[in-house]
Every structure is written in structure tokens, then in C-alpha cells.
């Protein structure tokens, strides 16, 4: 076998190996999605989105309260978690050697690796136990605590990617440091920061453990964050472990809705950031 043929064979073999890796990475994903559609799509109807849960054992009803609850709690968590995370990330990237930055970076990394149920227990201890009742707010707080370190670290990493020359250009025009950071650095990094924030949103939207003993779940429609609140992940958990056949089918459907929700959110934000990047930050 001459060298050229050998090279081509080697190249093709490597390409084959890589393609197999891609397949192995994507296959479980497609499998999950396929299973969800197969088992859940049949239960999707207008009622599923608009009706309240039927009493145990009865057929019909929907998960409207869980959809509303998830949107509200995740929304509130974003309002707290994203600004705090971005702010902390900007600080850590602007003052990388500041002691506060070093400590918060370390804490964020530890928090990122902390099981989310621990955050749930923490929120229970400091909010639920103090208030003496479960609440959507406690759930939001737990989710926000999960989001902050994720958003902080991605913000910091993205800002590091902004070329130093841009910062110098702004400073050389007479921009003060804070203006340079806000108007040039942050704006340039914005699409990346938003993508990072979105990943955090997607991640916490599916969290169940931190909501178990904070938001608790609810059979009723509620928009009051001070009351126990239903959510899609909790619905999946309750229905999947319940005794009724319909509950199982609804658990699949709720899981499908949750994934679709995250999917739509990602798509929307990606389009928005792409638009922003094209218009030049």
C-alpha cells in the first residue's frame, strides 16, 4: 500500500470515528425527544394547556396552573438571577485580581457543582421555615441562587473574549473606565452574555429538586408568588410517580411541553441575539 492510499484510508477512518461520536452524542437526545412525542403528544389538546388538573382518578383536565407557575417562577428567578449574575461577572472580569473577585469566582464554581437539592434545602431553611409556609417566591429564590453562578461565570468568560484593543480604543477617545465597560465592552459581549443567561434559564426551568420543598406544588391556579405554586417539573414528578394511567400519560405530555418551552425560548433568544450581533451590538 503506497503512502497516499494509506493517508486517505487513515483520514477516512478518523472521519468515521468522529461521525460515530457525533451520532453517539445526538442519538440519546433524539431518542428522548422521540419518546416524549410518542408518549406525550397524544395527550396534548387545547384542554391540556387551558384547563386545571382534574380531581385524582378522573379523566380530562389540563396543567394550565403548572405552565403559569413555571413561567412565573422562572420569570421571577430571571429578574433576580440574571442582573446579579451579570453584575458579578462584570466585576470579576474588570477586577480579576481583586480579592472579592477571586473569592466569588471560587464560590461560584463550587455552587455550580452543588446538587440543586441542596439549594432547595437552603431555600427551605431560610425562606419557607422562616415564613412558615411554602411559596412560589421561595421556589424562585432557589432557582435564582442556581442561576447566579452560571450567569456570572459565563459573563466573565465572554467579557474576557472582548479584544483588549477595543477597550484601548475607547479609552484613547477619552472614555472613562466605567463608560468603556458599559458602552463598549458589555455591548460587544452582549450576545454572548444573553446566550449564557439563556442556558441558565433553560437549565433552571427544568429543575425539580429545588422546588420540591419550596414551591411545593398546587392543585389550583395561582399567580400569587406568596402562595404554594404548581410547576411543570413538579407536575411531571407527581404524575409520573402517581398510581393512575392518565397521570402517567400527562406526565409525558407535561415533560414534552417543558422541553418545547425551553426550545422556543432558546430559539427566540438566539434569533434576537443574532439580530443584535448583525446590527452591531
Amino acid at each position, binding site marked *: 500500500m503506497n503512502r497516499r492510499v494509506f493517508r486517505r484510508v487513515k483520514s477516512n477512518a478518523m472521519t468515521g470515528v468522529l461521525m460515530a461520536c457525533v451520532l453517539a452524542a445526538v442519538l440519546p437526545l433524539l431518542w428522548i425527544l422521540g419518546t416524549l412525542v410518542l408518549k406525550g403528544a397524544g395527550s396534548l389538546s387545547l384542554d391540556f394547556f387551558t384547563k386545571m388538573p382534574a380531581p385524582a382518578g378522573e379523566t380530562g383536565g389540563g396543567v394550565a396552573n403548572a405552565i403559569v407557575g413555571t413561567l412565573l417562577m422562572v420569570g421571577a428567578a430571571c429578574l433576580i438571577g440574571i442582573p446579579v449574575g451579570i453584575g458579578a461577572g462584570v466585576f470579576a472580569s474588570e477586577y480579576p485580581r481583586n480579592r472579592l473577585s477571586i473569592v466569588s469566582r471560587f464560590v461560584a464554581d463550587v455552587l455550580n457543582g452543588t446538587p440543586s437539592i441542596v439549594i432547595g434545602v437552603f431555600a427551605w431553611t431560610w425562606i419557607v421555615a422562616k415564613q412558615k409556609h411554602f411559596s412560589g417566591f421561595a421556589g424562585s429564590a432557589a432557582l435564582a441562587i442556581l442561576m447566579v453562578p452560571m450567569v456570572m461565570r459565563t459573563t466573565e468568560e465572554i467579557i474576557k473574549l472582548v479584544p483588549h484593543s477595543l477597550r484601548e*480604543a475607547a*479609552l484613547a477617545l*477619552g*472614555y472613562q473606565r466605567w*463608560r468603556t465597560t458599559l458602552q463598549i465592552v458589555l*455591548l460587544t459581549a452582549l450576545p454572548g452574555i444573553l446566550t449564557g443567561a439563556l442556558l441558565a434559564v433553560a437549565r433552571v426551568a427544568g429543575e425539580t429538586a429545588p422546588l420540591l420543598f419550596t414551591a411545593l406544588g398546587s392543585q389550583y391556579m395561582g399567580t400569587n408568588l406568596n402562595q404554594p405554586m404548581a410547576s411543570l417539573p413538579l407536575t411531571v414528578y407527581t404524575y409520573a410517580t402517581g398510581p393512575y394511567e392518565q397521570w402517567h400519560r400527562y406526565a409525558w405530555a407535561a415533560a414534552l411541553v417543558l422541553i418545547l418551552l425551553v426550545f422556543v425560548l432558546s430559539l427566540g433568544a438566539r434569533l434576537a441575539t443574532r439580530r443584535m450581533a*448583525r446590527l*452591531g451590538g
Partner: protein
Amino acid sequence: MTIATDTPGFMTTAPRPTLIARPSAIAEGATAPAITVRDFHFAYGRREVLKDLNFVIPRRAVTAIIGPSGCGKSTFLRSVNRLNDLIPGTRHRGDILVDGTSVYDRETDLVVLRQRVGMVFQRPNPFPKSIFDNVAYGPLLNALVPKGDLPDLVEKSLRQAALWDEVKDRLESPGTGLSGGQQQRLCIARALGNHPEVLLMDEPCSALDPIATQRIEELIRTLKRDYTIVIVTHNMQQAARVSDFTAFFDQGELIEYAGTERIFTAPSNPRTEAYITGRFG
């Protein structure tokens, strides 16, 4: 190799010792000083990179700073608008005066200083914004003109930078979409928008092809009618082509400073001669 002879006067001066000793020396044919450097030392931590500089840069002329890598020429340029302030652990002694005002005085307003002293960098670094915004950013910040006059100012700056005809129909498209040479002229326009007195250019052509380089050099020759230009360059032919005066730096010291023609035809210092004839550097 052509040598710039468009400044009258410096050929006629009788030869005198040009090895710069203190006190400050003015190059032959110089007009009123724009920048006066007095006993200036600069160090990164313990490493002294500029030693006891004393010289005067004349108004409305092009002064080139040449010298081997690491000789401190960029550091000097960045000392004039205090861009080195960004780097922690720098020290300086002595002072630099721009138009009679101290750069290093405690009272000096960096915003004002950097408005008066514009800078063009080695690599074109337009903001990821529209062409219009790139030029308007400085004047907007420094409130140089009422907002309504911005379009005029942007046009004037782009014309001065010889870019107007190429971009007048697409002022709203991103500045980063231009070619390298156009981006660099955009950066020059951005600096000019600030109505500076001095333009510092840090190897402005080193990232450009020969045609783009030629355009920038033509531009420099035009701009010196209105601005004091200090250009750091690695390219000795370029220094010879565009500058009226040339300063040769080596190991942080000003070795020789004279009219460009003198430096390139009859250098008084053997180190200068060795450098310009290519024996080192």
C-alpha cells in the same frame, strides 16, 4: 528610496551634534513645540523602559520614532496619552507637556487629555457598531458639537480620513465589515472626530497590505497640515517617506533626533547608522 523633502528648512541647517544630551534639544527646522518631553523616565515595575528622555516634538509636522523591538517607542507613545495607566505597577519620573500643559499633573483630566491627543493603533480596532457611530462616539462623549451637527462632523472626519467616498452610501453598516485598510482609515476618522491637536500612530500600517499602506501614508502627509503627528514605525522606508523628523530610540534612550533626511543620510551616532543600515534591530 525616496526621502521626504517637503518640509523646507531642515536641509539648510548647519550640522551640529545630534547625540541628544540634556537639556532638551529641538530638531532642526522645528516650528513651535507641540509636545515637550522633560527628564522623562518610565518603568514597568523594576524594569526601566524609558530613560531620561528630553526632546521636543514640533507642531504640524510628522515625527517618526524608530528603533529595534523593545526599545520603548510604543511605551513612549502610550505615555503621551497615558494609556499605560491601565497597566498595574508602572512608574514614571519627569513629565510630558502637550501644548504647555502637563500630562502627568494630578489635576490633569484624562478625558480632556485624550480628546486632545488622539491615537491610532497597530491593528484596526473599529467598534462593532455602524460606520457613523464609530466616528460619532468620541464627539458625542466629549459633547464637542450639538447632536444635530453630528452628521456634518462625521462627514468631515470621514473626508479628512479619505474614506468618505467609499462609505457615504453605507454609513449604517457595521464598521467591522470594511477591509483592513478602510478599517484603519475609519479609526483615523474616529480619532479626528474628536478634534485632537496631536495624533499618535502606533505602527498604523503594520497589519495592512502595500496599497492600503500607501493610502495611509498619503493621508498622513495631508493630515500634517492640521495636526501634529507622531508615528512609531518598524519600517524605516516608511519613516523616511512620511516623516519630517525622526527620533531613534534604543534600549529606552533617545540616541539621535534630527531632520529625517539627516538621520537617513548622515547620522551622527554610530548606533543610528548601524540600525538604519540594517546591521541590527
